[in-house]
């Protein structure tokens, strides 16, 4: 099989990232709308998206600020929701860790759900890719995703309160997350991790500041790892 060019790998990434546009449009538009309803102007809403680049954390922080929660609670909650970014960073490190520091510094900004999810799957599949291929693919996925995130945040902030509640945009978030999860349920270990995470997050929903999500997330990860070890032992 001929080696792919970095250009073709970039386009491969772009094609994999492009479908997420349809997901991000309602998500980021909704953020803009919610932000404008909370009193942010277009520049402030855009700044939020550019600086944080993570929907769930942005929503969490905005909601707490609008509820007059203490500033540090809003910050800690958003960072807790974003802890998974550190996990993504760690998962990408075996593949991108050998790149020059300045490239890693740029790539780090673009570590989001979509770049992580696509890259880990493709890196596992294409063991023949060198560093240039991996980076090209990573930025290929980011290329269609990030501009739409910025653009629709601004559009949403402009539209502001003109969007009626009957559109039920609130549920764009759960539907999006559910759809992203399903292809991940590849093995019994993945399924077990997801089920434990769901049960634990419902049990610990009473915890303040989204801490239940963290507890459940870690419980799910431990479950997945343990089931994986058990299944491997049974095979050998």
């Amino acid at each position, binding site marked *: 099989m001929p080696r792919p060019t970095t250009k073709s790998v970039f386009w491969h990434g772009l094609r994999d990232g492009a479908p997420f546009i*349809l*997901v991000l449009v309602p998500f980021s538009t909704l953020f803009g709308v919610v932000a404008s309803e909370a009193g942010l102007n277009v520049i402030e809403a855009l700044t939020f998206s550019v600086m944080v680049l993570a929907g769930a954390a942005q929503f969490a922080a905005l909601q707490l600020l609008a509820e007059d929660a203490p500033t540090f609670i809003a910050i800690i909650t*958003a960072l807790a929701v974003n802890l998974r970014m550190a996990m993504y960073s760690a998962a990408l490190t075996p593949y991108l860790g050998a790149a020059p520091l300045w490239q890693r510094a740029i790539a780090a900004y673009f570590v989001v759900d979509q770049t992580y999810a696509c890259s880990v799957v493709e890196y596992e599949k294409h063991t023949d890719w060198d560093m240039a291929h991996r980076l090209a693919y990573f930025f290929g996925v980011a290329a269609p995703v990030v501009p739409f995130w910025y653009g629709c945040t601004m559009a949403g902030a402009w539209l502001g309160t003109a969007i009626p509640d009957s559109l039920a945009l609130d549920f764009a978030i759960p539907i999006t997350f559910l759809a992203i999860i399903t292809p991940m349920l590849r093995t019994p270990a993945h399924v077990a991790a997801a089920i434990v995470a769901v049960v634990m997050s419902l049990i610990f929903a009473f915890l303040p500041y989204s801490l239940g999500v963290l507890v459940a997330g870690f419980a799910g990860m431990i479950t997945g790892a343990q089931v994986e070890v058990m299944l491997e032992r049974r095979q050998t």
Partner: protein
Amino acid sequence: MIDTTTLWITMLSIGIGSYLMRFLFIGVIGDRPLPPWILRHLRYTGVAVLPALVAPLVLWPAATDGAYDAPRLIAAFVTLAVGLWTRNVLLAILSGGASLYLGLALLG
């Protein structure tokens, strides 16, 4: 209304904090090999954290102030079912959205 200073302090802190978390491993740890048990746990981050985020939103939607809502619950199950059946993220989202609007029109 949110105070402007508070807003900018919050945005800056979350922005810098999130970047540092993204940079932590990729930038600082570099290509030193990670122990297998860490990698084994990291494989399940997405499949654990995202369902944990979603489950309360599905059962207790913010839009209904946390009250159980049939159209939203059904839409969640439709999304999940279509996703599992077709493995197509986009189709799952569109089906879920269609189910939600249909449910809200019929039941809402």
